[in-house]
């Protein structure tokens, strides 16, 4: 089944309309709604007390696991909600498990209460009815989210979020490179090719269907395609073979210059970080602009590592937490999701030594002190400023992913 297209243009229109409506009705309507929301929220808090929330989240990073442990301790203290992280290697596992539960007709008492998700997995859950009713608009802290200027909090890889998942953090595709090995970093896909001609075998990207691999290929497509607006529409509306031809020509030229001459690919971006540390690679990629700085502080990467982005912008998206339709502790999950969006949690998450994940909150909606706290956060040695990070390119319509993946596997993994 194909979803309706939501080109950027219509997002902006929708946004204007929404803003207009809000200004018009904000006075009278809001007061009553607030009261209702507040009493509903009280009910949720009461219901949540004593519940155990199984939070299924990727567990491959000790830094992130430690942060989740801290957040769990806080909600236990503040709301008497117990949170247990179920560490997973692949969110697909979780979607699969919830699906198994659905096919076994288990409509309540599911094994997953909250899941860290975005993009394809979210779309899969939404399309298959694996998600609970819309809930984020009932969370008090959702009002602080910068839904206006961060459209990816409302359109998850172009799939409308529809309040089905709560924004947790922002991500942008950033390249890391070792200045000791490489003086001048590339500025776009074509100069990457030139750089690798001088430094054969010192870059690669994870084999698809790995998320980072797919992201690199999408970034390349965004830079190489003649008409990028095609990417906002379902792939079926474009002549895929013709439109994607420049991409494959590029990859055909790139692969002989890659690590292991493209005969083998790294398994994940995490492995690439390891390879960067070992000087097997000079360039790696990440979705967290603070990743390199954190890794340097942690002696996981050489102090000479810095980051860069391509000059015409780079892919950006938001990651979320969602509640499955049959969650056993839905109220507790809401309380935890709400806590994760609080300024307290966000400030800690954005702190470099803790995690350093860019916030989803809108600075304009915070108090003066809160804003000051965010402003005083130390920027890591390898972290780019917001201005340096440049333009954020929206993810292509999610139908492109499977088309790109299929073609890539056909060409390079057979």
């Amino acid at each position, binding site marked *: 089944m194909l979803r309706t297209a939501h080109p950027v243009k219509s997002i902006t229109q929708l946004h204007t309309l929404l803003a207009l409506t809000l200004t018009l009705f904000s006075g009278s309507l809001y007061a009553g709604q607030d009261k209702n929301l507040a009493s509903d929220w009280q009910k949720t808090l009461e219901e949540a007390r004593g519940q155990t929330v199984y939070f299924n989240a990727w567990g491959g990073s000790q830094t992130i696991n430690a942060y989740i442990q801290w957040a769990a301790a806080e909600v236990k203290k503040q709301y008497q909600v117990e949170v247990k992280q*179920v560490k997973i290697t692949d969110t697909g*596992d979780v979607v699969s498990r919830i699906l198994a539960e659905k096919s076994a007709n288990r409509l309540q008492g599911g094994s997953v209460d909250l899941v860290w998700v975005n993009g394809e997995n979210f779309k899969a859950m939404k399309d298959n009815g694996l998600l609970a009713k819309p809930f984020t608009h009932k969370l008090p802290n959702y009002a602080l989210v910068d839904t206006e200027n961060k459209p990816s909090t409302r359109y998850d890889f172009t799939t409308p979020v529809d309040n089905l998942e709560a924004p947790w953090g922002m991500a942008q595709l950033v390249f890391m490179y070792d200045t000791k090995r490489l003086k001048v970093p590339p500025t776009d896909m074509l100069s990457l090719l030139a750089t690798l001609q001088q430094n054969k075998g010192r870059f690669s990207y994870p*084999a698809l269907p790995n998320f980072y691999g797919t992201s690199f290929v999408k970034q390349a497509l965004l830079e190489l395609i003649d008409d990028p607006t095609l990417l906002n529409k379902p792939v079926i509306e474009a002549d895929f073979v013709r439109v994607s031809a420049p991409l494959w020509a590029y990859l055909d030229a790139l692969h002989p210059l890659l690590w292991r001459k493209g005969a*083998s*690919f790294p398994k994940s971006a*995490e492995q690439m970080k390891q390879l960067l540390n*070992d000087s097997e690679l000079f360039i790696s990629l990440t979705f967290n602009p603070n990743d390199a700085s954190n890794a340097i502080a942690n002696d996981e990467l050489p102090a000479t590592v810095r980051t860069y982005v391509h000059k015409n912008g780079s892919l950006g998206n938001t990651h979320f937490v969602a509640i499955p339709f049959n969650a056993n502790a839905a109220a507790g999950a809401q309380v935890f999701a709400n806590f994760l969006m609080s300024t307290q949690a966000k400030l800690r998450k954005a702190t470099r030594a803790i995690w350093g994940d860019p916030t989803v909150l809108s600075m304009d909606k915070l108090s003066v002190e809160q804003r000051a706290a965010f402003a005083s956060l130390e920027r890591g040695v390898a972290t780019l400023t917001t201005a340096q990070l440049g333009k954020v390119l929206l993810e292509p319509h999610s139908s492109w992913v499977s088309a790109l993946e299929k073609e890539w596997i*056909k060409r390079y993994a057979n």
Partner: protein
Amino acid sequence: MKLPNVLLLAVGTALFILPVSLGLLGTWLPALGYLPGMSDGLSSQPLLAVLAHPSTWTSVKLSVSSALFVTVCSLVFSQWLCMNLYHRRIWPLLKHSIAPLLAIPHLAFAIGLVFLISPSGWLMRLLSPGITGFDIPPDWLIVNDNYALSLSIGLFLKETPFLLLMSLAAMSRFDHGKTLQIAATLKYSHRQAWRKLIFPQMYAQLRLPLFAVLSYSLSVVDVSTVLGPNTPATFAVLIHQWFNHTDISYRLLGAVGASMLLLIVVGLIAVFYAAELVVKKTTQNWLVAGPKISPKSSGFEVVLAKLSLTIMIAVTLLCIAALAVWSFSRLWRFPDALPTLWSVEYWQKSWQQLLEPLQNTAIIGVSSALIAVFICVLVLEWQSKRSQLPRGGWWIWVIYLPILVPQVSFLFGIQVLMVRFHLEGTLASVIWVHILFVFPYAYLTLAQVYLQFDARYLQQGAILCQSKWRAFVYIKIPMLFKPLAFSGAIAFAVSVAQYLPTLYVGAGRVNTVTLESVVLAGGSDSRISAVFALWQFILPLVVYIAALVIPQFVYRNRRGL
């Protein structure tokens, strides 16, 4: 059929045949397009999709070739070692190195191997820049090669000790000493005697363990992700990817692949049987031709065998050493031979985080091992009383079933069933599924010694104790305590290493050291991967040592045993 046979069949069915068949059924139905909640009618669509998938055939070829390589090479190598080293001075080393080699979980070994042999690995660091001249690692494709060679070699190094253990067990099943003596008086050389007289008897006993190796190599996922190719990956990994694909409809492809994998295993087992027949036919004349006067064999082959055994042990020790060094390092850049900064912080951190997984692993491992050994004793006691019971017939196939059928082929089905009856995600169900995989190994290590127990001790004891039951508890169990403990230790080690069963049945909620290791092996931090891989190794090692030490300690007053 007599009553005991019926009962045995019932026990076997309940324990092994039923869960495996239900699991298979739960995988075959989706393979035919039936998965309630997603697609309801039967269709050939998933099958066609798998056949048309560009990765399928290369992937199948890789899996088949590497599994054949591992099976044949580990068989040949283990027999060659036995033949050349039997009753030489190095023989005790071989005997004693088996248990510790087996204790190392496959995954930990694989991670260690990568730390050792990859272009930025320890060996290259030791040689650089002095000998190689490299100050950055060369861009050489060593691990994850497209022919699955590094995967095959890694598995070969791990499966050889298993076949050695099985060979030792097999040798105690026939009077190999006498055979060799008689052969010698008939002027057979040692090699001839081994090849013509010992090996044919041995192979009959090794057939099923060999098939277990074959099935394991075909269906292994965790080791293959670390060492195997990825353009495309081996078939088991591909299936696993399909089961976990973001596009849920790929589950059906996964189910088809899992069913295909089972067919491949069955097909290859048939090939092995056929090959056995052919070899039997063609070597018939040679086998009965009697001794041939051959020039006395030079000691060269023996030296080579000694060297190979030493290398095998050394590589394993180096893998562990590489893990140990990484686990205590803070900063270790290429081409430094050793870390420039050392630290214990990753061990400390892991301890807090591992409290629960360690506890779970210990509870699951100890309970499944104890239960498995207990059932073994029940079954064997029964068998020992009834000499007419089949020893090598259908019964042994039933026991082997869970380790002959590839795990991915029925775990998905078991997961669906567990979810339906709301049984998943509990310690009890994880223990249950572990028993399934642990029992065969416990039985295999125990059966021979147990069945050879001289019943006259028991009769004597029964007369003296005035009770069969007391004789059993005070005479038989103490006399068999050592093998019982060893079999328990093997069972524990097998339980610790289980990845897919724990993941599927535990719903991710029952966290074990192995689950943590797999998650973190995919992470970016070598230091943390090393710590967790070592934890995975420490547990079975402690239990092995306990299995050696405790019997000695408990029965220090009964040296005569």
